[in-house]
C-alpha cells in the first residue's frame, strides 16, 4: 500500500516547501496559491500527498488516515494533552517553525501571580485556540475553579475584560504581545515535527521516504521584527452598567461590515486595523467595540462578554445545537455574506438526496465519517437523519479535500457550489441559508439608558440592512 503523507497549509507551508525541495521531492504545486490539495512528487510518484490545515494533521495521522505528517509540536500536544493514547510517533524535530506557547495576561491590570490564581476561589477564565493544552495547564496549576473558552482565533483580544489569561503562540523569547498582553508563564516551546501513525510505524516500510528527510536542515532565519508599538499601547475598555459592548468580525467579513456600518452612520476608527488593534473606536456614545472571530461570538454573547455581535446565522446555529438553552438570539438580519449550508458527498456515491444516502449507508453498514467546521450542526444533522454509526471529524477549513480518503460526508458552506464541483463532489441536501445577523441575549433586563443605546443600534442597522 502506498505511503500517505499530510503536509501543512498556513504558516509552515513556505518552510515545509523549502525543506522538501531541499530533500529532492520535486513537488508539483506546493505553494500559498495552490488550487489542488493533492500533490505529486516527481521523486516519489506513488506517494499520496495531501495538504491539510496544520491543526488537522495530528488528528488525521493519529486515526490512521495518513502514515506520516508534518506539523507543529503545539498541535501534537493539543491532541495528546487530552488523548494521550492517540499520540503519534514523533520521528524528528525538523528545526523550523520555532515558537512558544505562553499563558499571558493583560498588562493593563496587575499581572496575577500563578500562585494567586491557583488559590483564587473565583472562576479563572482562560481563552485559547488550544483548549486541551489550556485545560491541562489549569489542572497542573491546580486551579480551584476554571473555565476554558475555546476560540478560533484572536485570543489576545480577550484579557483583561473577558478573560484572565490567554494561552497564545509567540516567538521563542516573546516579551510582549499585541493588544497589551504580557507572558505570565511559558507553557511550551514548539517547532515543526515529522510524525508517524503508530501502527504504520510498526507495520509499514516508510524508510525510503524518511531517508530523504534524514539530514536535511533549513538555515536558521532571523527572528521576525517586534510587534508594531502602536498596537501594544492600547487602552483597556472602561465600562459601566450603561455601556453597550459590541463585537465586530475580523477576517474577510470586515469589508462588508464596514460598508454597512457606514451606511448606518456608525463610524468605527481603525477597523480593519493594519496594526492588529482589536479595540477600535466609535462615534456612538456609551459603546465599546472589540474585534474577534465571528465563530466565537455566540459563545461570548451567551457568557455576557458582549451585549451585541455581528456574525453569521450558521455560527449561531452551531452554538445553539451545542447549547440549546443558550440565551443567544438573532436580532437583525443584516443580509450580508449569504451562504448556504449543505451536505456534500463524492460524485460517485449513488445518492442524490439525504434519504438515498441514509439507505445507502444502512445497506453498506459502514461507519460514516462526517467532516465539518460546524461540529455541532454536523452531529445534529447525522443524528436527526439516522446515519447509523457515524463519527464527526472536526476540521478547520479546506474540508472539500477530505473526500474520499478522509471523510464520507461533509457539512460545508458554499456560495456558488463551484469549489464543491471542482473537487468532484456533489450537494445532496441544503440544511439552511445563512447571512450575517446582529445577535444579542434573550431575557436581559437592561437599564433604561443601555436599552435605549441597544435599541438605537438595532434601529440604525435594521434601516441600513433594509436598503441592501
Amino acid at each position: 500500500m502506498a505511503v500517505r503523507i499530510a503536509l501543512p497549509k498556513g504558516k509552515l507551508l513556505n518552510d515545509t516547501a523549502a525543506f522538501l525541495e531541499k530533500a529532492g521531492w520535486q513537488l508539483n504545486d506546493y505553494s500559498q496559491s495552490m488550487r489542488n490539495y493533492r500533490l505529486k512528487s516527481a521523486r516519489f510518484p506513488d506517494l499520496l500527498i495531501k495538504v491539510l490545515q496544520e491543526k488537522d494533521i495530528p488528528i488525521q495521522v493519529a486515526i490512521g488516515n495518513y502514515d506520516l505528517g508534518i506539523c507543529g509540536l503545539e498541535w501534537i500536544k493539543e491532541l495528546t494533552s487530552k488523548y494521550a493514547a492517540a499520540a503519534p510517533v514523533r520521528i524528528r524535530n525538523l528545526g523550523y517553525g520555532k515558537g512558544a506557547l505562553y499563558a499571558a495576561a493583560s498588562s493593563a491590570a496587575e499581572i496575577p501571580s500563578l500562585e494567586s490564581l491557583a488559590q483564587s476561589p473565583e472562576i479563572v477564565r482562560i481563552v485559547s485556540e488550544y483548549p486541551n493544552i489550556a485545560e491541562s495547564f489549569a489542572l497542573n496549576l491546580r486551579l480551584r475553579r476554571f473555565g476554558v473558552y475555546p476560540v478560533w482565533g484572536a485570543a489576545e483580544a480577550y484579557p483583561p475584560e473577558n478573560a484572565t489569561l490567554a494561552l497564545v503562540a509567540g516567538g521563542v523569547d516573546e516579551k510582549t504581545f499585541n493588544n497589551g498582553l504580557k507572558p505570565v508563564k511559558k507553557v511550551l516551546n514548539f517547532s515543526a515535527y515529522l510524525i508517524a501513525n503508530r501502527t504504520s510505524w510498526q507495520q509499514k516500510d516508510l524508510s525510503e521516504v524518511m531517508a530523504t528527510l534524514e539530514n536535511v536542515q533549513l538555515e536558521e532565519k532571523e527572528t521576525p521584527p517586534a510587534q508594531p508599538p502602536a498596537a501594544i499601547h492600547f487602552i483597556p475598555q472602561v465600562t459601566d452598567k450603561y455601556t453597550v459592548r459590541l463585537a465586530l468580525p475580523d477576517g474577510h467579513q470586515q469589508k462588508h461590515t464596514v460598508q454597512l456600518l457606514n451606511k448606518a452612520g456608525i463610524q468605527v476608527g481603525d477597523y480593519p486595523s493594519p496594526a492588529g488593534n482589536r479595540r477600535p473606536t466609535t462615534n456612538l456614545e456609551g459603546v465599546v467595540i472589540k474585534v474577534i472571530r465571528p465563530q466565537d461570538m455566540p459563545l461570548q454573547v451567551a457568557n455576557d462578554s458582549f451585549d451585541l455581535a455581528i456574525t453569521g446565522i450558521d455560527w449561531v446555529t452551531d452554538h445553539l445545537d451545542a447549547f440549546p438553552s443558550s440565551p443567544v438570539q438573532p436580532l437583525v438580519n443584516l443580509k450580508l455574506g449569504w451562504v448556504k449550508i449543505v451536505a456534500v458527498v463524492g460524485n460517485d456515491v449513488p445518492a442524490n438526496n439525504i434519504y438515498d444516502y441514509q439507505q445507502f449507508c444502512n445497506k453498506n453498514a459502514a461507519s460514516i465519517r462526517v467532516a465539518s467546521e460546524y461540529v455541532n450542526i454536523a452531529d445534529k444533522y447525522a443524528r436527526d437523519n439516522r446515519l447509523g454509526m457515524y463519527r464527526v471529524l472536526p476540521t478547520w477549513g479546506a474540508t472539500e479535500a477530505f473526500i474520499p480518503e478522509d471523510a464520507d460526508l461533509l457539512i460545508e458552506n458554499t456560495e456558488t457550489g463551484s469549489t464543491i464541483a471542482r473537487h468532484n463532489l456533489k450537494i445532496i441536501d441544503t440544511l439552511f441559508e445563512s447571512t450575517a445577523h446582529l445577535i444579542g441575549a434573550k431575557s436581559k433586563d437592561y437599564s433604561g439608558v443601555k436599552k435605549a443605546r441597544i435599541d438605537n443600534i438595532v434601529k440604525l442597522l435594521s434601516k441600513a440592512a433594509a436598503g441592501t
Partner: protein
Amino acid sequence: MRVQKCKGTCDLATAQMRRFRLIEDCFRDSCVKWGYQEVRTPTIEYLHLFTSTGTLTPGTLGKVYSFLDWDGWSGERVVLRPEGTIPAVRLYIDELADKSLARLFYVINTFIFEETGKENREKWQCGVELIGADSISADVELITLSLEVLKKLGMENVELKLSHAGLIRALLTGFGLSPEEQGKVFDRILDGDVAVLTRLKEETPELARLLTPVLDMKGETPGFLRNLKTMFSSSLPEFIPALDNFIGLVDMLTAMGIKYQIDIASGRGFEYYTGMIFQIYSGDAKLGGGGRYDALIPLMGGQDTPASGFALQMNTLMNEIELPQFSEKQANKILINMKQDRADQVKSAHRIAENLRAAGFIVSTQVDNENRDEFKWILDVNDKTQEVIVFDQAGERKQTVQTIGELLKLLGGKSGS
C-alpha cells in the same frame, strides 16, 4: 450490524449480577446493623468540585470523563464522578452539616479513563464515610466493619496493610525539598510512583540512613513503630505526632486480635488522606481501603470536621468470592402452564403463582419460548375444577391436588423444607 459495547466497560450478566447483589446485600446488611444510613450522589458533578479541594492530582484529573453540559457555555466542565468520597462529603455539607456525627454508606459507580481499555473504566464500589469523629476508635470501627463485610462474603484470609499519610508528608518535609518540589514528588507518589521516595533517598545519604527502616521494612507489631519513634525523636521531631497517632491505632488493633502489616511505602492513592491509611488485599488483589481525611471538609467550604472512610472494590470482589448455592426453594423453580389466550386460565395461574411466591418459591407463568429444563416442577391448571396437576421436569405426572394448601404441602414436602 452488531454493535459492540464501549471499550473499557463491562456487562454484568446474570451470574455476575448474582455476585454483585450478594456483595451489596452483605455490605448493606452490615452497614445498617452498625447504624450507618444510605445516601446516593449524582453520577454527574461539576469538575470544580474535584479541582477546588486541590487534593486530586493532575494525573487523576487528566483521566476523568469531563465534558461540556448542554448548558455549559461558560466553559466550566462537568464530570462523571471519578470517586465517591468527595461527592459524599459535598452531600454532607449540603444536606447534613447540622449533624455532629454522620455515619453514611453508598453503593455507586465511578469513572476513570484507563488507556488500554483492558481494565474497567467504570467501576463499582461500596463506600462508607464516618464524619464527625476523630478518635482512634473511629478508625478501628471502619477497619473492623470492612473486615466484617469481607468475612460475610467468605473472605477471611485477607491481609490488612497499614500506612499513615501524616508520616509520608513528614518524610517529604524531611527531605528538605522546596514547596514546589515537594508538591511534584507528592503528586508522583499519589499517582502510584512510590519508587520516587527511594530515588530521593539515594540522593540524600544522611536521610537514607534514617529513612531506610521506614520505607524498606515492614512491621507487624506496635513495637516496630515504637522503635522508629526512638530513632526519630531527636532527628525528625515532626514525625512524632503522626507516629503517636499510628501507635495508638495499632495498639488497639492488637488488643482486638486483628492482624496487620505496617508498610509505610504502601500508601499510594491517598490523595486527601491526612492520617491512617489502610488497604485490604487477598493475594495481589486489592479488595479495598480507606483512611482519615480531616482536612477535606473545611477545604470544601464546610466546618472544621474530622472524617474518615473506606471503599470496597466490587469489580475485584466479584472475581474473588464464591457464590453460595441457591436455597432449595429457589432451586425448585416452578412453571405454571396455561393457555395464554384464555383469561380464566391466566387468572387462575396468576392466583396460584401469587400464593406459591408468597411461600418463597420462584414461579413463572408460561409465556412463549419457555425453556422447560430450567424448572423442577410444571403445573397444569384446570380453571373449571380448580385442580392442579403436578408434573416433574421429565414430564412425568406426579399428583393432582385440589387446594393451594395441598399444593404447598406437596411441593414443600418434596423440597424437604
